[in-house]
């Protein structure tokens, strides 16, 4: 008997659904093994997990708070990965978006004027901040062929130090310097009321608030989909990702595409950073145990890869993984060690990667025919 793996000529439709679902199921089974091995009961752990993620009162509300940044980070990664430009700096680009967005909110929020203006300024500033930070890696890649994976990742640490520095080690514009609390522990200056982003509340499940950022994330997904599916730009970027040589022969301008795609990817991450400030924290949070500890940018890579870089799938998966992450935060304690959620996410990603082979290849089991009296010890190699 011989097992061979051969390429499928056509990819059956049903596999595009079965593979991700199967990956998730498989991941939970493997994570259950980890749980048992470290002395936890997987059934009750998982029940708690789903309760805290989606079923309890206000759990979806909390899930949205995590899902919104995850959707931005997933879209940022998807935008670049699609062109095989591995921007893994969404984390740092998000910090920069938060820094720029907070500056715009603090500056314009205090000067009166119509309410939407400070918010619009924050959106623009956040996108600019994220794009500028991503373009460092973009320029280095386009002009010096420097590996963007390493530069964008290393810049995450630099952005983290800048964020900490602005709140903890300097008297910067972002830092609250007045009041009793500020003298005890360094904090960010709160946004003026007019710069706080609005939310829309539905009265189900004990109140469900959709933050403005969630709508912006869906809008960004639509824009990204249109960009990649319906425009020449998106087509050229996809060709460049699949076959750089073909793209060069077709006259695609490599440098411009790299810069544009890095810029778009960074702008989405930066918008996520601005949304963190405007929607949720309402002040710049430089705490290494706060925004920096969560690592939305890295989880965004998982989200993008699971959504196979399709913007709408990314948004959906951000919601599901957001639930997982939210449950992880609420349940954290001796029964539910931190890091478990990362373990589950990692296994989901591994099994999705492994599952890819099922959708790209067919596994065929061949039996040797009995009529051949002396089968050769090894099947002859076909001439390549």
């Amino acid at each position, binding site marked *: 008997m011989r097992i061979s793996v051969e390429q499928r000529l056509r990819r059956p439709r049903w596999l595009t659904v079965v593979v991700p679902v199967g990956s998730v199921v498989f991941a939970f089974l493997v994570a259950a093994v980890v749980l048992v091995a470290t002395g936890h009961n997987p059934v009750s752990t998982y029940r708690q997990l789903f309760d805290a993620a989606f079923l309890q009162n206000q759990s979806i509300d909390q899930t949205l708070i995590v899902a919104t940044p995850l959707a931005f980070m997933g879209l940022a990664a998807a935008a670049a990965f699609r062109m095989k430009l591995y921007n893994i700096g969404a984390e740092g680009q998000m910090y920069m978006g938060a820094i720029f967005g907070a500056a715009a909110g603090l500056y314009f929020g205090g000067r009166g004027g119509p309410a939407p203006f400070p918010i619009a300024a924050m959106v623009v500033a956040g996108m600019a901040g994220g794009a500028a930070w991503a373009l460092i890696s973009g320029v280095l890649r386009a002009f010096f062929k420097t590996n963007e994976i390493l530069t964008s990742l290393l810049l995450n640490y630099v952005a983290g130090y800048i964020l900490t520095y602005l709140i903890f080690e300097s008297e910067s514009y972002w830092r609250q310097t007045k009041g009793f609390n500020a003298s005890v522990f360094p904090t960010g200056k709160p946004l003026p009321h007019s710069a706080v982003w609005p939310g829309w509340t539905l009265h189900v499940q004990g109140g469900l608030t959709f933050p403005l950022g969630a709508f912006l994330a869906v809008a960004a997904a639509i824009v990204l989909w249109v960009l990649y599916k319906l425009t020449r730009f998106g087509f050229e970027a996809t060709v460049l990702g699949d076959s750089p040589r073909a793209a060069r022969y077709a006259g695609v301008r490599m440098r411009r595409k790299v810069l544009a795609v890095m810029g778009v990817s960074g702008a989405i991450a930066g918008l996520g950073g601005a949304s963190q400030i405007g929607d949720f924290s309402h002040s710049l949070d430089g705490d290494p145990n706060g925004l920096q500890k969560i690592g939305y940018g*890295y989880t965004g890579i998982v989200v993008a890869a699971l959504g196979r870089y399709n913007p709408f799938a990314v948004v959906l998966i951000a919601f599901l993984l957001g639930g997982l992450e939210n449950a992880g935060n609420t349940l954290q304690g001796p029964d539910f*060690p931190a890091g478990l959620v990362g373990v589950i996410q990692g296994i989901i990603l591994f099994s999705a990667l492994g599952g890819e082979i099922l959708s790209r290849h067919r596994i065929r089991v061949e039996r040797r025919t009995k009529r051949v009296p002396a089968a050769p010890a090894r099947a002859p190699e076909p001439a390549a």
Partner: protein
Amino acid sequence: MNNSLLVVLVASGVAYGTPLLYAALGELLAERSGVLNLGVEGMMLVGAVMGFWTVQRVHANSGITLTLAILVAAVAGTVMSAIHAFLVITLRANQIVSGLALTIFAGAVGLSSYLGNDFNLADVPASHTFHALLPSGMQSLPVVGPILFGQDILVYISWLCVIAVGLYLSRTRPGLNLRAVGEAPAAADTMGINVTAYRYAHTLAGGAFAGVAGATVTLAITPQWVNGITGGAGWIAIALVIFAFWRPELCLVGAYFFGALQALAPQLQARNINLGPTVLWTSSLPYVMTILVLVVVSSGTARRRLGAPAALGVPYVREEH
């Protein structure tokens, strides 16, 4: 004299550079076989947490415990790299995405953090740590004392590893076969070299080195467990392999240079030297310098990526080449 900033920086550069060196040597072996593993940071963290756990749980004399801890860390790193090896060598998954997945799975928000929390390892000092090996008379010699003789045994072993890897790659048959596998797997296959076996073996060896690198951090440099303690060292190690043009002796030079940069921030702080926003620029320096050196290496005369294995990142499938 032995307390001058320069001597202290070089001496601590050697100490801080040692985990970078171990990790870079491991990555070098994997990349020479054609497998890019971006999971170094995650493998280091799992090695770091498991090494620390061993030291806290095993009650034996210091030497045995520490040897055991290094072994456990190496095994932990190997297990992590096995996941990557299976995905990219057998299943031919995308090496970049799989490596990133490994870092997410094992890293600061994943398995290493889970194990650290579950074993309650945070906020306790290590029960046994590596100390300077040689007699104090030798350590107090001017200049060479602290730099060469004031180090722990892991530093000396890392020197042996550099020599061993260098000789392996240039003077032994398996080493030459390894280079063939990384440069031209189809040709190597025709010569009767088992490409899959070589790739597995060296990816796993890379994991073992990364695990030891992690344990060096938690048992020699900062003897404690803190979530995400390696702070990006795994990524610097990957960059180091590129600057070193995939050569072990240059990995050593680069590792000590970046080690010294990492030592700069605490040293300046300890000496109360303030140069502008010191904390900001000294802590960012290793990362920024890594980027700058990468730019220099990847552009200009070195553009053709001297020494990069030609098949790096490309899965090998017989009959498809």
